[in-house]
């Protein structure tokens, strides 16, 4: 799958735009990287293949941001957390659609994808977020 595409962070977000969560698997040692890397930090191989990562996982920790950078000020207060997915993958993301006082460590969350015009730049570029599973 997608063998010809570069193993880059930009490509990761192109997949996000298509509603896919993909990491890369090192062909030599089998380590899965998310985000993708051009050089395996375990065995220094540069040979990878894209692999689909299950989108559901467990909330490891979270915070409610009240003072935000300029680009995010209109969204405050908003929740962000770090989610444990399968295969040892951890990923940060916003938590939406859950009342802030109902967020708990250990709760099951699932990744959703935002609709976004292709040409937009950060912070409007296509992104993923988490909602209650």
């Amino acid at each position, binding site marked *: 799958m997608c063998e010809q595409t570069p193993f880059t962070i930009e490509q990761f977000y192109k997949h996000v735009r298509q509603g896919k969560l993909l990491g890369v698997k090192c062909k030599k040692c089998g380590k899965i990287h998310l985000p993708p890397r051009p050089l395996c930090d375990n065995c220094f191989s540069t040979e990878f293949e894209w692999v689909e990562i299950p989108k559901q996982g467990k909330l490891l920790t979270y915070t409610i941001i009240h*003072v*935000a*950078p300029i680009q995010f000020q209109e969204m405050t207060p908003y929740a962000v957390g770090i989610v444990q997915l399968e295969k040892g993958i951890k990923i940060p993301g916003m938590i939406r659609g859950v009342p802030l006082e109902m967020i708990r460590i250990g709760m099951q969350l699932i990744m959703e994808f935002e609709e976004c015009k292709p040409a937009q730049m950060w912070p409007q570029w296509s992104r993923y977020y988490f909602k209650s599973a």
Partner: protein
Amino acid sequence: MKGKPLVSIVSAGLSKFGKLDGLYAREIFAEAAKEAFDRCPNLDPKKDIQALFIGHMGESYEHQGHTGATMADWAGLLHVPATRVEAACSSSGTALRAGIYAVLSGLCDVVMVGGVEKMTHRTTAEVTEYLAMASDYPFEQWNGITFPGLFALMATAHMHVYGTTEKQLAEVAVKNHFHGSLNSKAHMQKEITLESALSSRVIAWPLKLYDCSLITDGASCIVLTKPELAKRYTDTPVQIIGSGQASDTIGLYERENFTSLAAARLAAKKAYEMADVKPEDIDVAEVHDCFTIAEIIAYEDLGFCNAGEGGRLVESGETRLGGRIPVNTSGGLKAKGHPVGATGTGQAYEMYLQLTGQALGAQCWRFRRNSHGSHL
């Protein structure tokens, strides 16, 4: 080289920390350098100082990079080899490490290391954005995670795993503001109450305003030399007998856990081994309390208590002036202030004062009549 001096500190300087309106970073650094020169009449800065290492985090504040050369010039050290070190909040701590490399390599006899940051003329939103540049861009910044947000993620995890409380976090702020009230160079010199800390507005839950260090202007510096040359400059050098440095993933989310900093543990282990001392030998410490949770985690990572006991350690009063191991006698980043690039050597400045008995209001009794000491 176990337990042997690596380098000697022969002088130190610190500008006033605070909201220094109308000053550029270079002018603030000149104030710190002047104090270091005045403290050490035997030092001829132009002749003796062979290199300058400067910690500075952000060009955005003053629209000004190229900090090494600028600070060298404004400290009266024109043409000295000058190197800027950027390592986020540990910029001048890392500059100090670079100074140690320079002296130990034999290339330099005397070097100045320092740091500077001018921040307060920017809005809180701007500062929040600039500080976030030290965090991962394509995953953390893109998801609206701020720097307080990262430490809040650690605080939530620490509370969940160890039962640490918001009150224990606030105790760090109360203690450090008490210490700051004794320091005439601190940004905030007023004590605060536990109630005011707990009821302050939320920045990134569970961290509130009083859990966060201050946006501050300031500069700091110290002068290092070879131990065998130290007596040429002062009768009371402070010896650095251990040093450690380590790094970790840029993204918090990739780390093994969120309740401890592996880099801090590894660096501490190196420094303890080199110095041939144990955590229980430490009499006084300055640690990186950029947020109250960071001081609690530092107690644990530096071995002042076991993992998970940091909240109870601050509650016990043992880290307060007069306690078993006073921590952040300067007021810390919390009350003295956190001009990011100046913080590391600002901490070294405080340890220099403590170990030479010059810390005035917050002087630890142990070092009052002691003219020699060691800094870890």
